[in-house]
């Protein structure tokens, strides 16, 4: 606590209470162009504006269920700087007028949960959390809630179900959680990184923050880079760098002086890119990459694979993940993810059949009717269903010849 305060923690929370000006927080965040860092990129200030004014209690829920394969940025914040999270939660709760905030962490984050709880206890002892905070009349309780090992609880409506003590299955939307959320009351759900960023925006000023980055992708974000790179880890990147600068500059290039084969620029759920100038010169910009290359920056994970990696093996392991984590609510995902996993298993283990790739595309079409199109269409309630389809579409797009060499073609059969 002392070290965090020496670094300026809770100074902005004091300033917010001194000014007692909700509109100021709102205007600065709106001017900053901050978009949610959990993967959906929804503008935070717009979310706040959608809050209904119906007299019901409002809840703030922080999503720390980081479970997307190869995403590990929030864990760094939770374990490394829990006071930054607590301060961000205080400020956002003040903005939306919530008196009870929940920090939902995935069950595996035992250490993170301990540290955040300790930070809350210290903040309470110092008078920054609790009743009548610093004489302002504002009350806030923060509860740390651990999940128990379900990736789907990172989806906001499933997270709310889980927080209500139910099975973590996504709800049909609308109504959105902002209108009918936790205990059927208005609920703002934000990613850990988003909340931590709000404090910095107020410090810098929203307009100043918006000067960082490019176009509508303002500011910086945490990117978790992993795989066959020399220096994997979490880096704070300014939007606007090229993917080449990120992979070969910041992350130091490929290990053992091998060649890059392919990489996933936005975590496990979105389409892959390959070692080509077009892809490497792509700018790290949320809207630009989606318009030009049909993929997204997702949750900020970047996975990099070298020349010796079998794309079929990676696709199979991803499909296995989604088959395991499918909650079972929607039939296309529950059945389809398992079928995709089985077909990819035999393809990646030397048992592939000649028309397996077409079989995959056929199954995928049941989950995501327009398989090759991005952003994907879906026949399921939440986006977990189409996630393994991204891997299938990527195989079809970039590695069809390699797959056919491994499994043969229809004509040969």
């Amino acid at each position, binding site marked *: 606590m002392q070290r965090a305060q020496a670094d300026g923690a809770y100074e902005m929370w004091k300033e917010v209470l001194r000014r007692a000006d909700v509109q100021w927080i709102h205007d600065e965040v709106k001017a900053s162009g901050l978009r949610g860092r959990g993967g959906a990129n929804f503008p935070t200030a717009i979310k706040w504006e959608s809050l209904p004014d119906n007299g019901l209690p409002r809840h703030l829920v922080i999503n720390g269920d980081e*479970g997307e394969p190869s995403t590990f940025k929030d864990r760094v914040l939770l374990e490394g700087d829990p006071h930054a999270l607590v301060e961000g939660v205080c400020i956002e709760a003040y903005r939306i007028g919530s008196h009870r905030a929940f920090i939902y962490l995935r*069950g595996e984050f035992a250490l993170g949960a301990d540290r955040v709880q300790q930070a809350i206890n210290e903040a309470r002892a110092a008078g920054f959390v609790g009743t009548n905070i610093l004489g302002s009349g504002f009350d806030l309780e923060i509860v740390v*809630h651990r999940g128990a090992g379900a990736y789907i609880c990172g989806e906001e409506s499933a997270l709310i179900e889980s927080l209500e003590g139910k099975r973590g299955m996504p709800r049909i939307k609308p109504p959105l959680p902002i209108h009918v959320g936790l205990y059927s009351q208005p609920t703002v759900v934000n990613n850990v990184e988003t909340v931590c960023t709000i404090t910095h925006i107020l410090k810098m000023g929203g307009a100043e923050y918006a000067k960082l980055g490019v176009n509508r992708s303002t500011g910086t974000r945490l990117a978790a880079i992993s795989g066959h790179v020399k220096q994997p880890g979490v880096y704070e990147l300014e939007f606007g760098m090229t993917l080449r600068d990120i992979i070969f500059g910041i992350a130091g290039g490929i290990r053992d002086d091998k060649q890059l084969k392919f990489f996933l620029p936005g975590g*496990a759920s979105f389409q892959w890119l390959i070692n080509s100038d077009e892809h490497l010169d792509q700018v790290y910009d949320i809207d630009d990459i989606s318009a030009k290359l049909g993929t997204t920056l997702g949750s900020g994970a970047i996975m990099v694979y070298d020349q010796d990696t079998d794309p079929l093996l990676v696709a199979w392991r991803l499909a296995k993940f989604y088959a395991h984590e499918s909650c079972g609510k929607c039939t296309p995902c529950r059945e389809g993810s398992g079928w995709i996993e089985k077909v990819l298993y035999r393809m990646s283990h030397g048992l592939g059949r000649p028309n397996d790739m077409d079989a995959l595309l056929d199954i995928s079409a049941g989950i995501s009717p327009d398989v090759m199109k991005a952003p994907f269409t879906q026949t399921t309630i939440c986006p977990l269903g189409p996630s393994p389809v991204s891997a299938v579409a990527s195989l079809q797009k970039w590695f069809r010849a390699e797959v056919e060499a491994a499994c043969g073609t229809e004509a040969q059969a």
Partner: protein
Amino acid sequence: MFTDANKKRATEIVALYPKAHSAILPLAHLAQDQDGWLSPEAMDEIADYCDTTAADVQGVCSFYTMYKRRPCGNLVVSVCTNVTCLVVGGPEVLERLEHKYASDHDVFVEEVECLAACGNAPSMQVNYEYHEHLTPESAEQIVEDYKAGRLVARGVSGGLA
């Protein structure tokens, strides 16, 4: 059954939430830390705290992979083999540990999905404490250190002892 200290703790946990039903997950963690698994008796007791039925508690808990509904020893070893660990040696770690502890009732080795430790892959957790940059040899040594008491383990559900 909860010990007296945990009964008090359970009452405090229920009070954190506007609705008692929300406390099912944290109480299940508490019971599992205490008993080493989530027994039918524990789910019965949780139902009383959360103002619901035992069947409801069981239905909820069976959804989540962290709850072990049969005794699994004192050490839960979770080895990640997801896409980053996959390409840098995770499966080899899993294979070594599964083989070594196949008949050891005190150590439960499981394959898990991404643990969010990809920067230092391959990685595993022992009772939800992280261990990263593994080799099959170092992973085995870590488990041995826990067994010998040279490392102090958390509870089976990750709570502090």
